């Protein structure tokens, strides 16, 4: 691949090779991925052999590199563009290919049947957004299909009902938001999803849209351009409902809890305080912080398409390191606000044999406990 055009397009010339990107990259510590050196290659060599860089699929798009760069270069954008080259040439991991195909055919990267998308509801009171509603609840693929995450989606629906909100979901008509698709390098499919979803969202006439996942929140808020529709992550909405007295958390949860900031909520969208406000609003809770918190939170390795690609180093998972950090605080519960973090960290707790010590729960599961019996 010729380097010139992409170097200009991404304005890589600002790079001073300080090393803060690779230095801060959680993946660079365990694989050969070195974005700083890749940028250097782009700057000084006329060509780059993309297919020789299998480690491009290691990046989790946590955006630590973008946050740390002192010269406003966006190193992660280069990874996404280079993945795009690989997608175009068809040289992609099989699992990524399957995720793209699944999204194209069934509207979700796990390739689950579209008709099952609303199965999570399971008797919970949820109206079809197509009838018109003030708040559109965009569920997202993993929260809709993954059995482990259904407790989160149902807890959200229950909380919205308890707060008396006029909300609805798109049911089986909902499709993937494309956040991960874009980061897998499939810009064309992403644009198609944006177009179709935007039209669908607008047709509902809702003034607000809330997501389960920080990943959906990120792309719909920052990459869709939905003028006139306020896009929220559920932690923002629920924190506001609690503060305004619309949602009352009465049951005590007498636990020591630590909170793991998801990259797409924290680092990339600076939502740090609302999740903590919810946790602290639960009676009986003691919130303790890990050493690395807020913008320094360690990525769980679930982003950037990594839920559908293993990467080049399976053994040393960042999630393993993270759950040990959480356990060191003495917390009994590791709270998360992202379905990917929930899955990766819960898995890590089991693999690391920490399940006697610490339990991974989504903030909504905690809220649900505090709301009491249905």
């Amino acid at each position, binding site marked *: 691949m010729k380097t010139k055009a992409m170097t200009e397009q991404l304005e890589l010339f600002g790079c001073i090779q300080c090393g803060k990107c690779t230095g801060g990259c959680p993946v660079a510590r365990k694989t050969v991925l070195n974005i700083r050196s890749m940028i250097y290659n782009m700057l000084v060599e006329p060509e780059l052999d993309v297919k020789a860089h299998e480690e491009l699929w290691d990046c989790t798009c946590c955006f630590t590199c973008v946050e740390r760069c002192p010269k406003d270069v966006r190193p992660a954008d280069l990874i996404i563009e280079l993945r795009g080259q690989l997608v175009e040439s068809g040289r992609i991991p099989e699992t990524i290919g399957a995720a793209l195909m699944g999204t194209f055919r069934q509207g979700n990267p796990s390739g689950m049947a579209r008709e099952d998308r609303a199965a999570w509801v399971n008797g919970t009171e949820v109206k079809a957004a197509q009838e018109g509603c003030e708040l559109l609840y965009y569920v997202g693929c993993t929260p809709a299909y993954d059995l482990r995450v259904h407790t989160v989606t149902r807890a959200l629906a229950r909380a919205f009902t308890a707060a008396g909100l006029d909300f609805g979901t798109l049911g089986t008509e909902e499709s993937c938001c494309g956040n991960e698709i874009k980061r897998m390098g499939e810009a064309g499919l992403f644009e198609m999803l944006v177009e179709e979803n935007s039209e669908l969202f607008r047709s509902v006439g809702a003034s607000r849209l809330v997501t389960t996942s920080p990943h959906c929140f990120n792309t719909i808020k920052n990459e869709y351009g939905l003028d006139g529709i306020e896009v929220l992550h559920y932690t923002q909405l629920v924190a506001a409902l609690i503060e305004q007295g619309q949602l009352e958390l009465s049951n005590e949860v007498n636990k020591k809890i630590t909170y793991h900031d998801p990259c797409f909520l924290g680092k990339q969208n600076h939502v740090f305080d609302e999740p903590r406000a919810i946790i602290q609003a639960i009676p009986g809770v003691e919130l303790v912080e890990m050493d690395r918190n*807020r913008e320094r939170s360690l990525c769980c390795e679930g982003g950037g398409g990594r839920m559908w690609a293993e990467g080049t180093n399976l053994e040393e998972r960042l999630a393993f390191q993270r759950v040990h950090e959480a356990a060191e605080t003495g917390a009994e519960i590791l709270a998360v606000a992202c379905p990917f973090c929930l899955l990766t960290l819960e898995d890590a707790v089991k693999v690391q044999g920490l399940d006697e010590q610490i339990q991974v729960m989504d903030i909504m599961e905690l809220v649900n406990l505090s709301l009491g019996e249905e």
Partner: protein
Amino acid sequence: MAQKPRIGVYICHCGTNIAATVDVKQVAEFAATLPGVVVARDYLYMCSDPGQGLIQRDIEEQELTRVVVASCSPRMHEPTFRGAGRQGGLNPYLVEMANIREQCSWVHSDRGQATEKAKWLVASVVAKSALLKPLEEREVDVTPGAVVVGGGIAGMTAALDVADAGFPVYLVEQSGRLGGRMADLNRTFPTLESVAKLMGPLIERVQTHSNITVLLNSQVTGVEGFVGNFEVTVSGEIPNLQVGAIIIATGYDIFDPHRKPELGYGQYPNVITSLEMEQRLAAKDLTGSGKAIKSVAFIQCVGSRDAQVGNEYCSRVCCMYTAKQSLQVKELLPDADVTVFYIDVRTFGKGAEEFYDEARATGVRYRRGNISEVIRHNGRVALIGEDTLLGRPFDFEADLVVLAVGMESRADAGDLSNLLKLARSSDGFFMELHPKLRPVDTAVDGVFLAGCCQGPKDIIDTVAQAKAAASSALIPLLRGVVPVISETALVDEEWCAGCGMCVDVCPFGSASLDPLWGVSRINAVLCKGCGACATACPSKAIRLQHFTTEQIMAQVDALVG
């Protein structure tokens, strides 16, 4: 002037600056055909001595009554050509310039069109010149004395020079002591001199100098007037200071590393700033608790060269003070591991590179790669980064981490900038009039800059700039008079209805209504010739000399006619 004007037109090549794009010969030939023009010439450099000589000779021999020079911007050479006119015996206000460089040759590439435009510009100024009136050149007396704002090394140095030259100086210092930020330092680079030994005698001299009045716990609250005659109001004992010049030496703020939370400052007690390190080095106790230290790490460029915190500039002192501190650590603890993490090492001063060599020779290790994050690790802290020369990420454990914090413009710089109408550059520091040619002047005549209020610099450069500011401030003080512009507004009292519009629009407070006659009066000393009053006056009773309606209309007619 009943006599027909005799106009000389001089087209400058400015080397190739103009001549490469504009056919200067053609412009000169065209100028010769314009009404009133008796001679039109082109020359390689009109501003040179022979160029000016041409003008002077023509004034005498051709009995010129007007001179038009078509060359660069009047901001560049108007004083030069007015001076040439004066030498030739012509009132300097009868010399006018057409800007065919900045406004023509530099911004166009088509030679034919640029030449046509140059002709129009010349024709327009020639038309105006015919209507010019001679104006009287004026001067006002200067109040002997200066105010120096800021009692750090810059302010004290400037105050001493002005005071030594025999003028009273008011040194206004916001805090309760002299010495500024420098007083917080331990030793200086590259000579390792003790700051206390340098500063003690200096403060003593300032405090005992018969010409210096030190005003501590005082702030400037207002400034009125102009070069030569400022009235500075100050909070404190002597509220009203009358001086001829002002030197600003208000210094800088230190970058607050809480704004880089990833570096762990405030979270880990063994992560400290370089300023805190100065105190520990002075006390010869690096941990602040007497604990043993095996490894000290320095992180460069904290708050400098960093768009994330809005400071894109290099703070210019951190590389050198880090070299100094690393040497001092080696002096105290020869066996300690001392490592400096850097992006680029900038040691540009006299003796500076040699000092950096010395630090490395003493065993200080320099590793290229700036630190991305500091985390807790095995009971110590670890620096997380990449050695960019090895291309290898690392965890580097240390007992003490020193953040080389940079400089920022003062948080209250905006207040002073509003009071004095001082411009600030995009980095927030006060802006000098020209980075190369007028480094200590400001856009406000009579106000000068010294030290870090203008941009980050070390003590060496600060003292040099302070002495430069003092010298520049002494020019009006020693001369005793300052020239004031003659292109001021004049009121025709016959036409003035006393509506007061001019009083409302004048930004310099020079217009007022005569309480007895009810007509407008313009204070010619305060007037800056902006023309706002003349434009606002509904009865056209105000005329701005040298920019009268007739003169401007003649220019416009020449362009559109």
